[in-house]
């Protein structure tokens, strides 16, 4: 375990909405090319936490945050850190598939245009991203049709492709399978396992089995606190904390 290289280091994170404290003194490390899963009952702050990693918290009014999150040595939470730069390094896939009401091709080329990718390279990168997201074979004949005609699972893979296209280093999955059927879910899970070779991944999930299947590290959160953070294999076999054990055995949640 010693060859784990830290990609993101979050230290003493507190997060408030108005007067309400959502995250309490959280510290978590994300290791390069590993999947870190966040589990815990609804409202425990999992999504709130990973949204800090690409500065999406800045879009929420009335919120404040303290602590430090280092991505390759740069503090993400620092007000001076450029949000655009961080978001290109830290991509995000959301709970509900949210393709733009544009064509499949345009959904992916949009991000590329934002980073001023030369026009000539775009078709190639679109194809490559769709292949990485295991969607190419299903859509190669209708790249210029509306993305909204795709099924929910396909839309979510399109969102993953869109995110891969701008070549991030970290990908955040915020309950990516919450609105998908079991077959689409297993496709996304396979994809996550494949992608970790190239990316550092964080995944929020309601589904404990999903965390067990895809992750290397698991963080269990409860009421804004990090109760336990250990390698997935250990946590699911011998949880260190009583709370974790209770949650994993379905006594609450």
């Amino acid at each position: 375990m010693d060859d784990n290289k830290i990609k993101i280091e979050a230290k003493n994170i507190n997060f408030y909405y108005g007067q309400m404290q959502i995250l309490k003194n959280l510290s978590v490390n994300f290791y390069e090319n590993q999947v870190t899963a966040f589990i815990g009952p609804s409202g425990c702050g999992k999504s709130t936490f990973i949204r800090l990693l690409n500065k999406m918290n800045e879009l929420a009014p009335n919120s404040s945050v303290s602590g430090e999150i280092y991505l390759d040595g740069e503090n993400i939470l620092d007000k001076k850190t450029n949000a655009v730069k961080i978001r290109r390094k830290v991509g995000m896939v959301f709970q509900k598939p949210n393709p733009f009401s544009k064509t499949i091709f345009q959904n992916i080329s949009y991000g590329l245009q934002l980073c001023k990718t030369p026009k000539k390279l775009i078709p190639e990168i679109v194809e490559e991203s769709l292949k990485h997201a295991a969607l190419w074979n299903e859509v190669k004949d209708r790249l210029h049709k509306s993305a909204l005609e795709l099924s929910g699972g396909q839309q979510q893979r399109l969102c993953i492709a869109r995110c891969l296209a701008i070549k991030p280093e970290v990908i955040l999955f915020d309950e990516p399978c919450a609105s998908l059927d079991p077959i689409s879910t297993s496709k996304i899970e396979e994809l996550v396992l494949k992608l970790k070779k190239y990316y550092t991944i964080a995944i929020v999930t309601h589904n404990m089995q999903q965390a067990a299947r895809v992750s290397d590290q698991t963080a269990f959160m409860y009421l804004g606190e990090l109760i336990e953070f250990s390698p997935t294999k250990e946590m699911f076999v011998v949880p260190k904390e009583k709370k974790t054990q209770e949650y994993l055995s379905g006594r609450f949640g």
Partner: protein
Amino acid sequence: MFSLKEKAIKLIFACLAFSCLLFLLAIVAALFLESYPLFLKVNIFKFIFGKSWYPTFDPPEFGILPLISGTFLVSVGALFICIPLGIGSALYIHELAPEKSRKILKPLVEFLGAVPSIVFGFFALTIVAPFIAKTFNLPTGLCALTASLVLGIMAIPTITSISEDALSFVPNSFREASYALGANKFQTMFSIIVPAASSGILTSIILATGRIVGETMTVLMASGQAAVIAKSFFSPVRPMTATIASEMGEAASGSLHYHSLFAIALILFLITLAFNILAEKINQKYTKK
């Protein structure tokens, strides 16, 4: 027993709803019946494309091209004003404004929409016309430009409130997705939000056009009332609505002049109907997706 009562209630509401159709049919019938005698004597093409409008001369001439061109000129000018202002305010109010200014601006724009058109007419007469006359050194400020300006201002609320609705239908997840890809506020607004709301915005423009074309009181007061084909925005013009309103009082009931005014109204009605159908079609296309 219960179901009979329900049926009766349903029938009553159906009657109320369909009364609209009845009114529309009655309006069309009135327009047709009253303009029909004119078309017995005057060729319809000569009527629409005739270049002189001298209904009281002997022999009278009934060519409404100058009136149509007046309506067209004034409407195009008004659209140039209300489209950028209307859409710009909608974007500011919905996408950019801090909560405080949004709370002030939104009711203000709606209030602008509630101002009676005669008040806009006075505004045109006392403020806009003298200003235009002075600025461009014209003998009179009552010209197409003045009418366009005031009509444009009148139509802003239509565009703003419908466009704003369209913007609010764009799911927040689009914004999030765009930001997460590294877009800034303006890139998100112009590349994602506006295209997603485009059919609603287009509908607002068409409805505003309908309002502008059909507006009477303001153009009657502001346009200068010259029934000739205008050479520029600085010439006085006489749109169709203003012609009807100003001549109806003096045309002898049942005369050819009288019938010709109904014929103008019929043409106007058909134009606004076309705009409404167009708006409906766009809306349908939008909601199907």
